[in-house]
């Protein structure tokens, strides 16, 4: 991992007192936002790979009815751990890595506000996930009660239970430190002229995401602490025998859980809002409405949680309230989708790999949004609840949604990070194979769910066989396609297509924003002297700066 992108070029840094350390200690001790961004992204890749392998075990088992490869207990462990690893290890650190790299470069400051906290926040994660994954080797195995950790089922977990709780606490602390860091940076360290309503959408969405994290991760920490004391210290928060109520856990969990799903999609909205204007060569349509839409989505996310639990027996008035408040979210989300389309309308479009992934995001995320609207209908949800329709829905918003946006972001910004252009042909292959296989994997799951196949079950009735086989083939195809991506990323980092770094500062013809005003690769320290930001969001140079200063 100790490659040194951006630093074996000998020129340009002699005037800086401190460059990166050499060797492994550079990565352990680093407080540099670019190094930590890289670490976060490599960590996220590793977790996507591990979580992906788990999903292949699940899909292999579901290729045919009956039990072939794993026993039901191990199957449940894989479904539970797949979700925890992908959510807390893959998607969230992926977005934090992108924020680390891009937020300071987009608002024109030299680093995040709390660099040492940043280092700590990252290094908690490898420990948290080593602990979590080690539970597979404990007597009783890994947690198997689903990632939603509902009591009383989760309280039957064996030795791995306290480790699960402690790992969730560590992940929570890591997320909270990252979020605080980002808020403090954005609020206090913007370059002169970078007013709030001039910030790139990626910075805006991350600011709001960070507030969501600060608001709900402590609630999750509280909920899992209550689980811990229920199991070991004789409290009865969720124990009906002692006057508690297991349904209350679901309320507390989803009070965290619903904002959490927006934590996993709002930064994606920011990425797509950066990429589409670049390749449409037009400014983003409806910038202010985009900002207000994100803020509305964030607000609504706090008052819709019980749509995850329509079937627990909430009163009719509650079903109606949560149904209509949920459907209301379609309005700001629709504003965003229409704005992206309006940005592309009449633009001089080109279809480089990041743009392809961005367009696929708009289309496929909308499909996930529509199945979400179906699920929001309380009477319909009684039929869909806990079926594969739900699995299809949230994988459509998370894989061609969140994950595609992370992939698009990496293709979009990696020339800036490494100074080398990725291989466009390989990128196109990666895009088309990913887009086809992801639909092959998850589209049939809609039909399985509508036909009544329950989720989290290792075996199924024979009439579901065909669609399951198609889905499994798609999953393996998608997994294998990602090796093209890994190859492309590593090729950029290590210069497998030649050592030359010949990318211009702007990289993309239509790109605007502060990050495109620094050299490619971005030097280890950028914006040590803050630029003055003009109305177009670009630095004002030379005489103009002097003139503005006086």
């Amino acid at each position: 991992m100790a490659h040194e992108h951006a630093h074996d070029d000998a020129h340009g840094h002699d005037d800086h007192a401190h460059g990166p350390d050499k060797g492994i200690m550079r990565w352990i001790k680093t407080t540099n936002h670019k190094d930590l961004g890289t670490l976060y992204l490599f960590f996220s890749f590793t977790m996507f790979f591990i979580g992906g392998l788990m999903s292949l075990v699940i899909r292999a088992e579901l290729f045919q009815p009956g039990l072939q490869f794993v026993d039901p207990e191990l199957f449940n462990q894989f479904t539970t751990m797949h979700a925890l690893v992908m959510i807390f290890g893959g998607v969230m650190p992926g977005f934090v890595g992108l924020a680390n790299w891009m937020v300071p470069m987009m608002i024109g400051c030299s680093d995040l506000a709390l660099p040492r906290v940043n280092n700590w926040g990252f290094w908690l994660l490898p420990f948290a996930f080593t602990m979590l994954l080690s539970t597979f080797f404990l007597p009783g195995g890994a947690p198997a009660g689903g990632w939603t950790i509902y009591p009383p089922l989760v309280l039957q977990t064996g030795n791995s239970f306290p480790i699960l709780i402690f790992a969730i606490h560590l992940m929570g602390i890591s997320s909270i430190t990252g979020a605080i860091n980002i808020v403090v940076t954005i609020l206090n360290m913007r370059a002169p002229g970078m007013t709030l309503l001039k910030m790139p959408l990626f910075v805006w969405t991350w600011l709001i995401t960070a507030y969501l994290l600060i608001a709900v991760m402590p609630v999750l920490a509280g909920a899992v602490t209550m689980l811990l004391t229920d199991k070991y210290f004789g409290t009865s928060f969720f124990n009906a025998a002692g006057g508690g109520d297991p349904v209350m856990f679901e309320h507390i969990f989803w009070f965290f859980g619903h904002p959490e799903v927006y934590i996993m999609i709002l930064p994606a909205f920011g990425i797509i809002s950066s990429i589409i204007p670049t390749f449409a060569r037009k400014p983003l349509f409806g910038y202010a409405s985009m900002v207000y839409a994100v803020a509305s989505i964030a607000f609504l996310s706090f008052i819709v949680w019980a749509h995850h639990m329509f079937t627990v027996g909430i009163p009719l008035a509650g079903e109606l309230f949560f149904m209509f408040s949920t459907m209301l979210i379609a309005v700001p989300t629709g504003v965003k989708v229409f704005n992206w389309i309006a940005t592309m309308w009449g633009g001089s479009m080109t279809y480089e790999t990041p743009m392809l992934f961005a367009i696929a995001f708009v289309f496929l995320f909308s499909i996930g949004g529509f199945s979400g609207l179906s699920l929001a209908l309380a009477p319909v949800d009684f039929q869909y609840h806990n079926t594969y329709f739900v699995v299809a829905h949230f994988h459509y918003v998370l894989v061609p949604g969140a994950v595609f946006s992370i992939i698009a972001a990496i293709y979009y910004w990696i020339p800036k990070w490494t100074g080398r252009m990725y291989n466009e042909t390989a990128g196109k292959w990666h895009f088309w194979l990913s887009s086809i296989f992801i639909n092959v994997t998850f589209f049939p799951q809609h039909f399985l769910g509508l036909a009544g196949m329950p989720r989290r079950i290792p075996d199924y009735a024979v009439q579901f066989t065909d669609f399951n086989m198609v889905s499994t083939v798609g999953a393996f195809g998608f997994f294998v396609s990602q090796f093209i991506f890994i190859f492309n990323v590593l090729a950029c980092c290590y210069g497998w297509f030649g050592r030359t770094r010949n990318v211009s500062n702007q990289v993309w013809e239509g790109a605007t924003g502060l990050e495109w005003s620094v050299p490619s690769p971005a030097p280890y320290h950028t914006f040590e002297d803050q630029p003055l930001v003009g109305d177009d969001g670009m630095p004002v140079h030379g005489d103009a700066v002097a003139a503005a200063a006086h």
Partner: protein
Amino acid sequence: MAAEPESPEQNSDRRTRRYTTAKLLLVVAGMFGFGFALVPMYNALCQLTNLNGKDKGMLVSSNVQEHEDDSREVTVQFLTTVNGGRVWSFAANQAQIKVHPGKLYTVMFTAKNEEDNAVVGQAVPSVVPWSAARHLHKTECFCFTQQPFAANEEKQMPVRFMLDPDLPRDVNMVTLSYTFFDVTQLAQSVSKPKS
């Protein structure tokens, strides 16, 4: 790091950053507390709206005045469940009875400890429909306290209850459900610090 003297400007920058950080940490602490505050809020809301079929009157004895309304007849059904399906056999002596609102009735439940060691049980009541919960009053119930059982002991346990005449007119069947929980460990861990 290099010890460069800081300008007053940098100093004030650092102070604003610390101030923002401290504010955000307060929010974190507040939200951690809010998670726990949801517990009493949830219970209060449940009692206010009779959510979950739980009412204050379900768990404590209430004083009631009998004033029978024999023009109405309501069926009361009794459901019994043992959590986890072990430890006890537990059933109502009659599956259902017909009652007049405003009159006290006594029904008997039988529970037998099928284990060879002493256990402590706690019954948790629930009423369907929820609109009936606040109109069901109990002067005596085995669910008011924990029930100790000797090894293989069988107990007859009474419930004395009344539906008040304000029961909504559209309710003609009320289901009273009891779930028996094994609280042997819970009872020990609670009583230990006291002794």
